[in-house]
């Protein structure tokens, strides 16, 4: 959402880039030869895992975008509780009012990973853009540098503060 806070600069951006994949756009498969991917969210389930590997394979510059991608953040709060198996068992079976069962629909409900992991724990990451969410000026600064080519340098409170 904070991406939309870029406001009119989005038009400027649109002149330079082509949007080839997004959870909001109706594109089924992650394409080949992508220049830049902003990856939001941590790696929490089998689908995430599959996708992030694909993204890494097919992308030149992978940006961990936002605290969840960079640290696991709130989504990783389940990790101290241990593996998801017993948690699901408690929630869906033991505490169920009626005959409970753990949701199981292969191909529809993806299996949870043992632990929620930040993106860089699964695949190499090229740039980190922390923030929850990353404020628009921070996103813009990063993208401008990428568009300009050369090394991206983010420093200081406005650029790398978590939270």
């Amino acid at each position: 959402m904070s991406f939309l806070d870029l406001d009119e600069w989005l038009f400027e951006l649109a002149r330079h880039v082509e949007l080839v994949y997004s959870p909001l756009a109706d594109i089924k498969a992650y394409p080949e030869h992508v220049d830049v991917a902003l990856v939001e969210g941590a790696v929490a389930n089998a689908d995430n895992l599959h996708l992030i590997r694909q993204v890494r394979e097919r992308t030149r510059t992978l940006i961990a975008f936002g605290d969840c991608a960079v640290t696991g953040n709130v989504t990783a709060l389940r990790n101290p509780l241990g593996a998801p198996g017993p948690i699901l068992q408690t929630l869906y079976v033991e505490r169920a009012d009626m005959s409970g069962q753990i949701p199981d629909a292969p191909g529809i409900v993806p299996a949870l990973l043992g632990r929620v992991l930040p993106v860089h724990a699964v695949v190499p990451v090229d740039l980190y853009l922390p923030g929850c969410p990353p404020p628009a000026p921070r996103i813009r600064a990063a993208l401008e540098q990428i568009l300009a080519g050369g090394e991206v340098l983010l420093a200081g409170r406005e650029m790398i503060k978590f939270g």
Partner: protein
Amino acid sequence: MAARTFTINDQLVSGREGETILEAARENGIYIPTLCHLDGVTSVGACRMCLVEIEGSRTLRPACVTQVVEGMVVHTDTERLRNYRRIIIELLFAERNHICAVCVANGHCELQNLAIAIGMDHVRFDYAFPVCEVDISHGRFGIDHNRCVLCTRCVRVCDEVEGVHTWDIAGRGADARVITDMRQPWGESTSCTSCGKCLLACPTGAIFRRGATVSEMERDPTKIAFIVAARDQRW
């Protein structure tokens, strides 16, 4: 007191005899990062953030407890020190569950500030995700061990300034926890005077005012030094 002339980062500075490198550096406008140091209470040299290089010394020295010596040559911001400081901060983030996004101290946190100053854009180590308790049994304050960095500033301020010693550390190593009295819920502590000095002293959101929500915990730890100075002057 006799003056001491020495060098910090190629800058000739003066300090007083008995003064620490940290004090002298600050007086001369030179920034040395600290975490466990708190003006007004004893320094313990534990966090290692303020380690500096002193020419001729085999080991790195904590600036908060190392006294200035005439002619010494100090470096506070070398490549090696910057690297080590970043690792220290990363180790802290990996050690407990520091979720800035939902923390009362977000934006007013010394740990967060250090991470920014040191240029930490991500943590290279695996997170430990330990199980930590949150104690909100006290009427006015709470403690969230997920955010504690074991700097012992609360322990020292309670002992040295308030003179109560409600806080201490139990256990050791990674299992160490700050405790009140016999590790009972804070609200059941019989020694706690609810003075709130530990709240002022805490560098992170570990000790918080109840009712405070995300980013609302602004504090001024320099008040501790003010209290101590005021007390000392009265005598």
